[in-house]
Structures are given as C-alpha cells and as structure tokens.
C-alpha cells in the first residue's frame, strides 16, 4: 500500500516534469534567441546553444526605447488599480448571485451572462468612451473599458461561493446579527482565498497583457505600457510586410526590427510576472475552517 503510493507519487512527478519541460523549452529558446548575436541568428537560425552571445538586444531596448522603464511603471500602476477595482466589483456582484434566496437571481444572472456573448462592437464603445466620457489619453482609458469587470470571473466566483461555502455558515452568521456586508467580509472572503487569489492572478494578467485599450484610446507616449510597446512593434512589422510598397523606397529607412529584438521585448514583458507569481502562491492554501462548522 505504501509502496504503491510512492510509485504513484513518482509517476505523477514524472508527468508534471514532462509538462514543465514542454512549457519551459520554447521559452528558453526565446530567451536564447534574444541573447544571440543578430548576424549569427540570421545565418544559423535559432538554437538553444548560440555560438555567439550578445547583449546587444537588451542594450538596444534600453537605449532606443527609453520608454521601457516608464512602460513598466505604467503597467504596474494600471495592473494594481485595475485588479483591485475589478476584484471589488466581482466579489460584490458574485456574492448576491450565489445566494439562492435572492429574488430575481435568474434575471440578474442573465443580464450578466448576456454581456459575455453580445457587445455593441468597437465603434459604438469607442464613440461612447471618447465622446461622452472623454477618456482618451487618460489613465482610465487603460483601466475602465472592457476590463474592470468580466462576466466570466463573476460566474467563476459565484460557482465557488455556491459549491464551497456551506449555507449553514451564512445562516449562523445571520443569527448572530451580522449584516450582509459583514458576512461577506468576515466569512465569505476569508473562506474563498484560493478563488480570490486565482482571480487576482487572472485579472492581473489581463491588465498586464492588455494592449487593445491602449491602441484605441491612447496616443500619448507617456501612457504606453510594456505590452503596448511590444504590440506596436509587432503591428509595425505586420504593416510593413503588407504595405511597405505604399511608402516607396523611403520605407527602407523604417526597418523591421530584427528577430532578436522582437524576442527580447517579449522576454522583458514576461519576466516580471514570473517574479511576482511565487509571492501570490503562498495564498493558495486550503481553507481549513470549513469542516469545523458542521462538525
């Protein structure tokens, strides 16, 4: 029995290690490409073990895009504010919906769900935000449109409340005279730590990875985030390979960034997430209290 268990553990580790290798190898290739001398990359192609190392890519990124550091700051500010706002809206919306005794719960759920499938499209959304709310070239343009609440996460949160928090616990708190806000704050949220942390991660990633809002609403370089800088580069490449002829030979002065640089910026955009994630992980712990109440 014990032996059997150890074999199982080993097999499971082996499976996970295989997955990890599959995930890390391409990433490593990306990092290595960004560290390979460009001429070598052009001549010999991609390799895990480049013949000629070079930090030129990163020197280029720091030098010519003086905005990179600034982009980091913007990304972090936007991610922190946006994630906080989103989590507040999500939890406040998900909890009432999880309560089976809430009148018109079905209608409210439908109103929420409907937004997942139908939207007015880019043009009306843009016209509203740009003309009614004058959001262009403000930091709110990177926070509010589309990202501040997502039906998907609300539904996830609601399911979690429903399946993981015993109704008896809420009833008990009510009998003690707690208000709904108090129940939410001192009973529900602490018991939902795993899901809250998961959503912090996911919403945070959405803000971290977003470039679309920037593309639509921001032209002021002072508001550029890292992902916008990366996306601008990629969009420029796509444009040049499609329409270079429309600029004539003058386009020759506007060169497509070389492969190493494209990879380098991608690395720069990913690294901080890998650094921050371990700090979030400690909150991924089992809620222990749940069992206690019933027993």
């Amino acid at each position, binding site marked *: 029995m014990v032996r059997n268990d150890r074999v199982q553990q080993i097999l499971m580790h082996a499976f996970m290690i295989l997955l990890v290798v599959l995930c890390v190898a391409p990433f490593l290739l990306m990092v290595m490409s960004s560290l390979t001398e*460009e001429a070598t990359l052009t001549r010999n192609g991609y390799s895990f073990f480049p013949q000629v190392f070079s930090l030129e890519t990163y020197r280029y990124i720091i030098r*010519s895009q003086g905005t990179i550091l600034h982009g980091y700051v913007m990304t972090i500010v936007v991610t922190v504010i946006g994630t906080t706002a989103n989590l507040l809206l999500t939890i406040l919306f998900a909890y009432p919906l999880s309560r089976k005794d809430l009148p018109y719960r079905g209608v409210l759920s439908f109103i929420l769900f409907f937004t997942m499938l139908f939207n007015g499209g880019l043009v009306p959304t843009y016209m509203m935000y740009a003309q009614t709310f004058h959001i262009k070239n403000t930091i709110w343009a990177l926070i509010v449109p589309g990202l501040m609440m997502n039906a998907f996460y609300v539904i996830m949160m609601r399911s979690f409340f429903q399946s993981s928090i015993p109704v008896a616990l809420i009833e008990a708190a009510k009998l003690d005279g707690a208000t709904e806000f108090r129940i939410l704050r001192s009973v529900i949220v602490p018991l939902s730590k795993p899901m809250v942390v998961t959503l912090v991660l996911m919403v945070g990633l959405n803000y971290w990875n977003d470039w679309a809002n920037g593309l639509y609403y921001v032209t*002021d*370089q002072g508001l550029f985030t890292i992902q916008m800088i990366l996306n601008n580069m990629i969009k420029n490449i796509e444009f040049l*390979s499609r329409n270079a002829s429309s600029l004539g030979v003058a386009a020759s002065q506007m060169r497509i960034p070389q492969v190493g640089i494209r990879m380098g910026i991608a690395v720069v955009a990913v690294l901080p997430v890998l650094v921050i994630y371990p700090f979030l992980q400690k909150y991924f712990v089992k809620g222990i209290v749940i069992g206690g109440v019933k027993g």
Partner: protein
Amino acid sequence: MKKFVAVLLCVLMMLSAMIPAAMAEDMVTVSLYIPTLAPYTEEAIQKVQAAINEHLAENYGIQTKLVYIEIGNFEQAANLAMTTPELDITCYFTDGGQLANYVRNGQLIDLTDRFEAAPDEVKSVFTEAELKASSMNGKLYGFVRKYQYGGYETVVMNKDIVEEMGIDAASIDSMDKLGEVLYQVHEAHPEIYTLVPQSSKDMTWIRPYIRSVGLTTFGFLNNADHGELTDTQIKSMFETDSFRDFCAYTNKWYNDGLIMADAISNTREGSDMVTAGAAFATLHNADIDPLEMFYPNTVTGGIIVDPMANCADIGNLQFGISSNSAHPDEAFTLLCALYTDAKLHTLLSFGIEGEHYVLNADGKAEYPEGMTAENEPYGGFTASATYPNYLLNPVRATATVDDYAATVAEWDDSVRVPAAFGFFYDTSDKGDFVAAYKNIEEKYRDVLLTGTVALDDVLPAIQSELTAIGFYDVIADMQAQLDAYLAEQA
C-alpha cells in the same frame, strides 16, 4: 459597508476625472494625425507643436494639435477617431484601394469646390496625374503626398560574393540574366540561400509585371519589362502573361533549391539576410536614391523592370479632411499651408533646427551631433516619408542630388504609366465580391510568386473559385467601362 463606500468613491473619482478640462482658446485648433515608425517622445512633439502654433498664429490665425500614431496601428486608430470630431486632418493609405472605402463610408469631405476656389499657389503644386490619383467619380477627396512615385525593379546582392565571383552587377537586367548568376552562386555557395523574398513572404514589393487598374485590387493588365505599357485587356492576376512568366522563373528556381524553402513562412527582411551573408540576393524596388545607401555590404544590379507607376502608386499616401471635422474651413487652410509653406512643413517634418536636425555648411540637413535615428527625440527626420510635401524640406546630407525637386520632377516624367491610367472603377456596391476575392488572392498569390507551387498545378482550381464568386462577370463589366473610357480619351 466600508468597502462599498470605497467603491462608490472610486467610481465618483473616475467620473470626475473624465470631465474634460475646459479649453479656452480664441483660435480654432485643427488636429493633424500622422503615422510614424520612428521613436519619438511626447515632450519633443509638444515642443514642435508649440513652434508650429506660433508660426500658424502669426500667418493663418489657427492652431494645430499633432497626433502621432505608430504606423502599424494608424489605420485602425485613425478610423476610430474619424467617428468623432476629434480628428480634422488625417493621413490615409490607399495602396489597397482604400480610397474607395473612405468615399463609400462617407469618411472624407469632398474638396472639389474648395480646391477650385483655392489660390493658384496651391493649385500649381499638383500635377494632373496627382489630382486624378486622389479623385473618385470626378470629385477630389484629398491631396497626395508629394514624392517621387513608382519605381524600377532590381536585385540586391551580397557584396562579398559579388566580388569573390567577379559578377558584373550592372549586366543583370533581366530575369534570364539573374537566373544565370543565381545558378552560378548556388553552385559555389550551396550553404546559403541564393534568393530570398524581399520582405516576409513577399517575393517583391513592386509586384513586377503586374499592375492593377481602375484603383481596384482585382483587375490586372499585362506589363512589359521594358518599353510601352499598352495592354488594355483586363484579366485576373493569375491569368496575365507577365505573372505567368515571373512564376515560371521562381518555380524553377524554387525546385532547384535556389529560393529559400521557407519562403512562405519567412518573417524577415531579405536585405537583412543579404547584408548578414545568410542569403546571396533579394529582388528589390528602387527609385532615385541608390540602394547601397540603405544596405551595407550590398551591390545593386541593373534595371530588370523599367520604372513604372499606376494611380495607386502616385496616391498611395494622401491627406484629407474627416467628414466629422467641426472646422472644415480651418482644416482646409492648414492642409493647403502644409503643401505650400516651406517653413511650416520643415518644422513639421524635421522638427526644430539645431535641436532635432542641423543644417551643415552646404545647407543640407543632418542629425545633430551625437544623435542617430535611434535617439533623436522627434523622429520626423528619420521617418520623413509620411509628411505631405517632401519636396519642401531642405535636402538631406545623405542625398545623392543637390536639387531634389528638380530630380523628382525629372524622375516622375520618366516613369511609365499604363494605357488605362486615370480610369476608375466604382466598387462601392461590390463589397462581398472584394472580400471574397481577397481571400482567394491571399490563398494563392504568395505561394505562386515565391515559386513554392507551380501555376499550372493550381490554375484550374483558381479559375473555378473565381468563377464561383462571379469574378468574370465583374471583369467583363469593368472591361466595358474601360473601353468606353479609352474611346472617350482618344
């Protein structure tokens, strides 16, 4: 409850932040949207804008707001901005037949009457060909960028190999001659690519031998490599003799291992690979400036296809006024000034003298001491190709000629135009067809031009797909209109 209050506060804060700062100015401000690919800083733009506004206030009584957008995002961002009054004057690309879209969508103001009433100084800027290129159904919708247009086709080769093998670059003036050289090089250097696409999977920008007509993306005429362009029979791209000839060469070269095997999944620039010695040659278009100037360690061959241009080449970049502009009159004033006022235009495109560019002893422009394309903060000097009137700027120190305007005029005269030049075919009610055609063209064009697939193997399939979307009916209609147009001209 506290949390709830916090949320409410948060929402209120946001709403208050959205209320626009009141703009108190007597003069009308006209916004100007320009695409760029150079690094720029917001401070530099503000500085240049202030200088321009000083000049505008003195001479025209208006103000401007410069909005720079990365070139890859430009079309989408400008189209969005055109739904609201925030955009007045914008640059737009018309290489893919977009002028018809802008007109159909009602995005641009009809400038015909304003241009009629404009002073001669403005009218004399444009040639008849340039006005035709920015007109549709006889109405003028914008001004084309003043620049040399069209180009000839040549080949860019790695200098080391050219010298090592003693290749006479200038003698390569046809695909046959190019083929001979490529085979020799392939024999001597089988370890590198002999021929690579010019950019990504695009075998060559200028699409030698084929030219679309009527400002459409789907009707084509045969083009001669050298000599007059007399064909008037509209065909599909895939059925023109010149396309067939070109693909026959590339297909043979591809099968013999001369063209990179990954031509249709390539993401690099051909010139980069040639410069780095990873490839021997790439086809390239060229006009006035020699290509060696842009690509170190390369040699340019002879003229494979003589200089030519069609309407889309002349007007591939234009400037017009949005139909949602709140100040069309002031916008037109600025638009005209951009084509006639050298001081204004130089400020806009090169920035402030002494700060973003300097004039050397010969009166030619160059980067200030210690600055390069990578760190000059305004970026206009690097990306000057996207401004309205290139000819108003001081000549660059790198230019090979002294009088740019005269050279360009001479060049433009020497460029061949097809017999159907000036003919326009209205596609505004053929959107479904244009979209369907685009999907078919994209499926086959690059695989054929790169030689990856032989034309004869797929032509029946292409023709049956074209028939299915009604291609030949559209072409017949277009042909009838072209014939009528030609008869009228004659």
